[in-house]
């Protein structure tokens, strides 16, 4: 279960939210034509790695949050309000500091 640190409500369980997909696509202007709307509705990159996406805090503040999530590990790197800019880590791998105590016994 993903935990999302809502800027309004604090750390909450994924079950309080509704997923609303890629937050980087932009609705075209009304006269942009069928191709542009087709891409807006249907075309997605489906990356393995960091993904900026909308999560609607349905059982909380009802805000659409911009969440930077890793699609493989589910790590949440950042949570912001809809209008805020978010940093996307450059590296493909996750940025969580691994536990210092690895303690692998001598082979």
């Amino acid at each position, binding site marked *: 279960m993903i935990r999302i640190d809502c800027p309004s409500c604090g750390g909450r369980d*994924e079950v309080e939210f509704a997923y609303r997909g890629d937050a980087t696509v932009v*609705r075209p202007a009304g006269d942009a034509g069928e191709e542009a*709307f087709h891409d807006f509705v249907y075309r997605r990159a489906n990356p393995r790695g960091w993904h900026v996406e909308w999560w609607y805090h*349905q059982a909380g503040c009802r*805000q659409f949050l911009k969440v930077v999530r890793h699609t493989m590990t589910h790590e949440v790197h950042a949570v912001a309000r809809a209008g805020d800019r978010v940093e996307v880590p450059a590296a493909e791998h996750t940025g*969580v*500091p691994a536990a210092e105590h690895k*303690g692998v016994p001598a082979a």
Partner: protein
Amino acid sequence: MTQMFRMASGGIVDRSRTIGFRFDGRAYQGHPGDTLASALLANGVRLVGRSFKLHRPRGIFAAGAEEPNALAELRTGARREPNTRMTQIELYDGLEAASQNRWPSLRWDLLSLNGLIAPLLSAGFYYKTFMWPASFWEKVYEPLIRRSAGLGRASREADPDRYDTMQAHCDVLVIGGGVAGLAAALVAGASGVRVMLCEQDFVLGAGLIGEDEAWRSAALERLAGMANVTLLARTNVFGAYDANVVGALERVADHVAEPGAFVPRQRYWTIRAGRVVHATGAYERFIAFPDNDRPGVMLAGAAATYVARYGVHPGRRALLFANNDAAYQSLFTMQDAGVTVAGVVDPRADSAAQAAARARGITVWSASQVVGTAGSLALSGARVARIGSAGTDTLVAADVLCVSGGINPAVQLATQSRTAVAWSERLASWVPGAALLPQFSAGAANGVTGLREAAADGARAGAGASGAPADALGLPEDRPSDVTVLPFWEVKGSGKAFVDIQDDVTADDIRLAAREGYKHIEHAKRYTTHTMGTDQGKSGGLVGAAVLAEARGERVQDVGMPTFRPFTSPVTWGAIAGTSIGKHFAPTRLSPLHEWHVKRGAVFMDAGQWVRPAYYPAPVDGDGWDSVLREARAARRGVAVCDVSTLGKIDVQGRDAAVFLDRLYTNTFSNLPVGRARYGLMLREDGIVFDDGTTSRLAEDHFFVTTTTANAGPVMQHMEFYLQTVWPDLDVTLASVTDQWAAMSIAGPKARATIERIIEGLDVSNEAFGFMAVADATVKGCPVRVFRISFSGELAYEIATPAGHAQTVWNAVLEAGEAFKIEPYGVEALGLLRIEKGHVTGAELNGQTTAADVGLEKMFKKRGDFVGKVLSQRPGLTDPSRPRLVGVRPVMRGDQLRAGMHLVESGTTHSLGWMTAVTRAVELEGWIGLAMLRDGVARIGSRMQAASPLHGALVDVEIVSPHFVDPENARVRV
């Protein structure tokens, strides 16, 4: 004689109390502190079950969660629970348990003849049998498999017990209450952070029993005194999920016959932890050798546990087969407790422990292996041979054969949270590597063994997880224990050498899978069912992987391991469901008028989470249809009132509210005058109809939007999405007010005459308050909003009032309508009226239909953008031959229509459309219905057939306009 294998002293069972229990109907005795397994061993019971496919006799093999054989049906009647591990069942007075998978009895199992059909049950049998003729599958194979393969039987009665759901947060979660876990909890607890410790066993620090018991007592006492530490014994962490969220099952009352009053049987915990310490220990692994499943073959550590913890001799004469020095300590523990030692078989040429054993007078067969076992229902001996010597072996008498192939650190939970694993040459096993999440592995789970070293490792992990210093913790005393192994997995020979004892998977099965192309560890697992039992291959998983590695000509570590997933141990459905059962599965939403409906005797129906009156039976009614028709007739000819409080309601305010609605709806709201309502249609961005409803303008910058009952939430989310993410520049605020406003629809020719008696401060005459007018007023002093809107097609008013006034206003309406014989009407009559009128609802707006499909294409504004406009013009959605809304009537008026009927040309079977809604009518004779029909408009006036093969129904019908009643819409305007 009872408990003849019980030692006079030793262990932590309470010999001052004797408790009775029954196994397979026979009475036995044990002591508090026993498990079912230890008590059975104390009574000399060796045979406890039959194997999954082959019905081979099986005995107790382990002393914990890794037990593959000793599965029982625990308790009886409604409380019977199958597949419980006898090694984890805490003994209580009156316990009843039964062995599984045997017929007619455990000792005389006729299906053990399955040994004869074993070739049918080899690797991949699930796959191969699908290639056989269906007749053989149905008549022979499946009944045979169903009879012979299987585990315990669940009770068919309703579970009488309660299960609780728990939500918890902590800074540090320690999983495992062995020596490493206790040390971690002590260090983290001393720092003051919130600590939780979960241990599946009913005692903490069990490994210290018979070793440093003083350290154990002191540790438990200190932890009990820490207010910031929560200790949960009998609690198994079964799964690690994202972000350090774990699931755990607490067996609150499984150790008593029945839970006490208000006590749940189990609790299902969801724990959100800042940091996690995996102190999950290690599972000893066995060695695959011929007939390694005979009752009496047991993991070496388990045998020692029965001696040290329970004071039970697992046998009279013990033989050890091991490839590591640590296992010798298990044998020495048994020898010190009075078990006769037959010797040690060790594939290694020499070791320190071998010398120590010889010094104790123990025979050691070095560079040797066990090539078979003797006995039938119980072990009588093992055949021992020097490695490399052909043909000659010695039969060594023994009734317990202790096996140890080394240890596997329990990395299941760590890998579930994506901790990497590394191969340890010293252990010949996987150990945890770098953690992805803030997690730490400690003790045997980290490959660190020996009480002292494991405690130190636990203290380090506790310090890492809490930021506290680790060095203050005193460490327990221990004995030398070296788990370094000579990797040794299998002894080849004649006879079945099992790599998965529970699933009856042999080393030969693994090789067969590899030969047949299932060489990937995940494929071999599924093809053979290796590690797919309730024990999840805890002690045999790596053994099978090693056999596969050899078959592939690779090293074990190159084969890898299958992905570990929740659940690490079985969890009952009752615990998963928790309190969300029956009516509590989902919240129930009630109208503020619900109590009135109940008193009136309404028959209710569910509409999503809402409970709504379907109809109100009256003494004059013969059946439900009589009630529905009576209510609908009242609406058509007199006056009737319906509770429509469940409609979704959204308050839209702000300078740009009109612009916002123009962009969301296909039609225009910016030119709607204040004090007027308008029907609106909303599309999804892909051009499909999303929802409909009326929107009223209460002020220049204030609108009141209604949605269908079902779509109230989705429409709110849709609006918020566009407002917050697409047009954040708009000055608009939204509020859901569904629950705040009650609403009632007063419909019928006498509707105005009814409400004008009670409406205060508003002239509701047709001239002053025409169709689609909206205004505020009061009723009996209660504030109301009056809307002249109609869903029934009759002259109608909707009165909305703050929910707290609902009953007052409702009563006033009924009182005012008394003169006109007003009737309350339910959802069924509401549906009848809308079908007669040809209004669409969710049955037609089903997420697949366009505005044109339901005859609403005129609702598209000519200018300006709106959601769904562009994609609604795609060729596939504008194809004129798409199914379109029509009305349907039977040619023979007495024929019945059914929702879901298909429309076909007479004499053909090709479906051209389907009925979305049907009803008996009041304005027309007989049944009517709405349908979506290909080329629907062109077919109006023609005849077709409506077919429901499921009901054997075929009805001649005529296709008509969907507007059966008042197509000119004149009645609403009078």
